[in-house]
């Protein structure tokens, strides 16, 4: 079985799980994601950067709450890569 991948934030800022307050979250635990898929947004300098999954797989854990502060290196999401 492939090791779980920690997706960490390269940026400080505020983490958002959804594209807008009235929209559903980008991902939920258990969702299947593609490599490069957006997992959330990081607000910094009044602009938004997207946090993308580096691998295709399954979201096993979301460790940061919507609206919480991030430091560089904070692990935000854990993804179990799909086989192959």
């Amino acid at each position, binding site marked *: 079985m492939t090791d779980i991948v920690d997706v960490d934030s*390269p*940026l*400080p*800022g*505020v983490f958002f799980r959804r594209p807008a307050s009235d929209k559903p979250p980008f991902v939920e635990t258990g969702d299947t994601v593609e490599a490069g898929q957006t997992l959330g947004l990081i*607000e*910094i*300098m*009044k*602009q938004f*950067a997207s946090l993308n999954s580096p691998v295709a797989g399954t979201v096993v854990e979301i460790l940061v709450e919507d609206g919480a*502060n991030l*430091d*560089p290196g904070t692990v935000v999401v854990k993804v179990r890569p799909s086989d192959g």
Partner: protein
Amino acid sequence: MIEIVTPGLSTTVQDTRERLGTAELGVNVGGALDRRSAVTANLLVGNAPEAAVLEAAYVGPSFVVHARTALAVTGGSVDVTVNGEPREAWTTVELRPGDVVGLGPCRDAPRVYLALRGGVDVPVVHGSRSTNLLGRFGGLAGSALTKGSHVPLGPADGRAVAWTVPVEHRLAARRRDALDVVPVEPDDRLTQEGLDTFFSTDWSVTPASDRTGVRLAGPALSWRPRPQQLGAGPDLSNTVDGGYPLGSIHVPGGSGPILLHRDGPTMGGYAVIGVVARADLDLAAQNMPRSSVRFRRVTRPEALARWDEYRAGLSSLPSLLVRA
């Protein structure tokens, strides 16, 4: 010329010339927020101190080199690679056509500076090559760099001398416990308690901070009651519109002080409660979000003495470089 592959979050052309005498047009001084790091980067590649450099916020760019040049990266700590091989920051790095340079995320300060031999060769507008993002002039078409941007470099004599900056003269060693602030005179806007709170609080830098200003979070400050002045807004933090000196601190609504930096507004209707000593503006721009900032009350002569020290420090930079 270099060609940008990934621009980073916000990478702009900046120099240290300042736009002076343009405030009446609403044009701020602009320029590298951490001047000493920018000047140091220039010296490492043999440029004049005021040559234009790239300033990157939080994440450095990656780029392809199209003509032989040299690079120096200063400011916050960041990983630098050339063709995937790690290279030292604060050190001259020779580059050849075809080299691919990559910078990672900033670890301990928001801004890194990239000087390239010859300097970034863009037109001087209002006395500076710096990018004015709000006015969309200066720099490369008045904008932050984007994927595919061609960054032109000026002529260089091609001398390949490799220098480095000893660790004790890099940004991390210049950190201070507090930023010096001269309160405005008369300091009759905040209550004594409000002033005491301002100077005794560990303010938290917020992620909304940018080239315009450093935004801080912390306790509300109390204001002396006063009648609304003719032409002023209704809040006690308002005043009749007036000029904002570089480094002004105002407190819209009484909480969340904003330290106006080089791309800040030149005037407005919030009362300025104090001005950060110019000698501390570099460091004011190099605090990561959520790090804490304290202010120390100083007199104007003390702030001016620190400015003299700062300028002497810049003048002595060439003697601090050692052969790599």
